[in-house]
């Protein structure tokens, strides 16, 4: 902090359930250097100005997915966003939109984790192989079909960008549907129907999406959840109709 000369205002939306009826804004003046992230600004507040400020963080390099928050109203990773971009106007910081606020900048992730478990986010082998049979082979093109969707870090920024999730929390939401597609589109996987059936054919699944597509804009890892969801509407529709004709086939 030795060479810090500039001061920036960080307006944090605080919520302490034991004393606040509803979230209240609180302003802090933070000295900063050009290489400081918003996360470092919050750490300065916690270390020097107000130790009660609560927020999640871990890796500081955009891979753990813990420090997502609304920065000037946009869902961003605070470790990947720099204070200098908001100088001299200052910035507002708020817990991720569309999730219940647990405390200050910390949201409740219960709903997300429950849904994540439900879609079985792991490979269900199409044909079990023994060690002697060797690895599962895949062509580069087969890998391309799911590769970008496998970059998800569960940071939930896409949920804060999705008004449909905000309006109807039963909607499975962009990130988890993208992960569902990541496994369903994997040539080694055989769990497609299992996952599609676990969603049903209602607004809880793909049909809750109205193609706002802001999820794909805000993803810090270049995942395109809107694409994953919308190409699966066709799969869901086919699965819905064919289950009458070929019950056995659809459930395979």
């Amino acid at each position: 902090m030795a060479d810090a000369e500039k001061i920036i205002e960080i307006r944090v939306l605080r919520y302490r359930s034991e004393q606040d009826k509803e979230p209240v804004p609180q302003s802090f003046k933070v000295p900063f250097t050009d290489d400081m992230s918003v996360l470092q600004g919050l750490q300065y507040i916690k270390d020097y100005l107000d130790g009660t400020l609560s927020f999640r963080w871990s890796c500081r390099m955009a891979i753990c997915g813990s420090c997502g928050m609304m920065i000037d109203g946009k869902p961003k990773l605070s470790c990947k966003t720099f204070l200098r971009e908001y100088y001299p106007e200052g910035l507002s910081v708020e817990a991720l939109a569309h999730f219940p606020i647990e405390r200050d900048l910390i949201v409740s992730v219960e709903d997300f984790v429950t849904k994540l478990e439900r879609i079985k986010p792991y490979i269900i082998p199409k044909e079990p192989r023994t060690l002697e049979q060797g690895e599962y082979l895949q062509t580069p093109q087969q890998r391309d079909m799911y590769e970008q969707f496998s970059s998800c870090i569960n940071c939930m920024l896409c949920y804060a960008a999705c008004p449909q999730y905000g309006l109807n929390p039963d909607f499975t939401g962009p990130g988890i549907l993208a992960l569902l597609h990541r496994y369903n589109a994997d040539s080694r996987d055989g769990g497609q129907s299992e996952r599609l059936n676990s969603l049903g054919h209602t607004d809880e699944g793909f049909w809750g999406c109205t193609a706002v597509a802001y999820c794909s804009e805000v993803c810090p890892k270049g995942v395109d959840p809107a694409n994953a969801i919308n190409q699966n509407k066709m799969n869901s529709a086919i699965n819905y109709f064919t289950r009458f004709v070929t019950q056995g086939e659809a459930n395979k």
Partner: protein
Amino acid sequence: MSNRRPYVRSMDGWWKRDAYFMRYMAREVTALFVAAYAFVLLVGLVRLSQGEAAFNGWLQYLKTPQMLVFHLIALATFCYHTWSWFSIMPKTMPIMYVGGKRVQPGAITGAGIAASVVACLAVLLIAGGMHS
């Protein structure tokens, strides 16, 4: 006793929070103009079934100033509606390969807009041919 009291924020006025949401809502609202114009054409069809005089009356009505203004507004909203849906079209399609190369989103959007321009020109040419 736990002090846990998760706070759920209101969604009131959500679409005004971000320019991205406003563009989305504009796409949705312009669909109403598409529906309104479909209704105008439907009325034309009904008038056609009622005979030549009725159909000509409908044609005359379309030439009134208020209907000309309506057409201009409808045209502007159609252009936006078309553009916004073709912009999102790459998100609705599976990953495609042509000649071993992946088809880029811009190519899909461009092809959609080009197809709509060609369709408009074809309709104009046919309509122009009928008049001449």
